[in-house]
């Protein structure tokens, strides 16, 4: 099985998504090429297909409805193109190892400062989501019934309390990091190999050529 690094997967997905999203509206021929590429990528990453299908969002349907007045052909092109992008991105998402969301983001081409904030946020986020789950469990054990009641308790004050709790929690996480010598640079050991670099560059070039061509070609 192919074993790419997390960063490589992220970057390749980004390249594919961007070039798919930008092909000319109505150019079905190029869309077909990307369809094949997207499915290839999904296959290579061994993405769980059913989870993938479930993830297609409400927002897409909503926008689909609104683009329908532009004509069935145009609307279906828009939707299909969008679906392909989702397919590629989700293939990456669903194959991130558990708990590595934050680490995966280290592969983003962002300025260092922004990257640090993004990584820390993702890291806190996982902890926060766990806290919410724990709060919910604790509440259930003391007589909270079902999800609808939980919604009632997710009143503003509970969100406020969540904020204080997260403030406290993140301060502790930050302290824990400081104690282990954190100095503003998240140490992570994943590296992109030369081979992977090469593939990335090639794909990017192909992507650019295809996308530009989609505007010139007469097909």
């Amino acid at each position, binding site marked *: 099985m192919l074993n790419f690094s997390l960063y490589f997967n992220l970057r390749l997905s980004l390249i594919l998504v961007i070039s798919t999203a930008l092909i000319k509206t109505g150019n079905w021929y190029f869309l077909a090429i990307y369809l094949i590429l997207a499915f290839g990528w999904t296959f290579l990453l061994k993405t769980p297909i059913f989870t993938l299908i479930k993830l297609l969002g409400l927002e897409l349907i909503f926008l689909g409805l609104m683009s329908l007045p532009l004509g069935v052909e145009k609307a279906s092109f828009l939707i299909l193109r969008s679906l392909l992008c989702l397919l590629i991105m989700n293939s990456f998402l669903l194959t991130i190892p558990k708990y590595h969301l934050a680490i995966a983001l280290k592969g983003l081409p962002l300025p260092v400062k922004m990257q640090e904030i993004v990584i820390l946020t993702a890291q806190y986020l996982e902890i926060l989501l766990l806290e919410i789950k*724990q*709060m919910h469990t*604790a509440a259930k054990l*003391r007589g909270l*019934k079902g999800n609808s009641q939980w919604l009632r308790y997710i009143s503003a004050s509970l969100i406020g*309390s969540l904020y*204080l709790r997260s403030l406290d929690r993140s301060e502790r996480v930050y302290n824990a990091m400081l104690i282990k010598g954190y100095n503003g640079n998240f140490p992570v050991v994943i590296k992109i190999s030369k081979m992977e670099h090469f593939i990335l560059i090639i794909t990017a070039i192909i992507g650019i050529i295809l996308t530009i061509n989609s505007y010139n070609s007469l097909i």
Partner: protein
Amino acid sequence: MIKINHQEQPIIIVNNLVFGYEKKLILQGISFSLNRGERVALLGKTGAGKSTLLDNLIGLKLPQQGEIMIEDLKVENSNLNQIRKKIGFAFQNPEHQLFMPTILEDVMFGLLNYQISPQKAKEKARFLLAEFDLIEYENRSAHELSGGQKRLAALAGILALDPSILILDEPTNGLDPAWRKKLAQILLNLSVEVILIASHDLHWIRKITARGLILDQGKIQVDQPLSELFKQEKTLEKYRLFLDW
């Protein structure tokens, strides 16, 4: 099924319980029953599966095989609300238990859920906080308490509901000796039907409970009166329960 007679009225029956996390089977066929009036210790080394077993009892995790009965109710999704109403359950980490903005609200939360009037609930909550020496902190958020105080606040929130079954996961963790003593007194004076306590604090637990279950290798390996068990150093050492540590 186990027959019920008047001397031994089982409140909790666990029958061939099997539970595992994704990667690994933890509980591999657990069976025991706890009768009305019993105070029972759940012992076992770090990672033995004590907390996992307790979670199963209250339906936070559902078994892959076997069944659990709490007072004639099977632990399954449709019964959980009813079952949880009977049980007071303390998590191993008290921070997981405290979720309301202030500890007063936290203790009141359960009471309000069970249709007690706000005024009565507040009265009762304040009574319990006073019992646990926390009344001066009633308007504090839980994370502004010390480790031991968090434990006490969590216990107050549970006892406020007058549960008929009490399940505690390492309740003395983080408490000072004086509080361990006071907690023992409180627990011994409670009128509940069954108490089940997981603990590594052997000297404390032997003062509270009369029967001991040792969990090891996914099974209940020992089920004995504690007074006997504590005489058998060999057995204890076999399960890494050293009395002098």
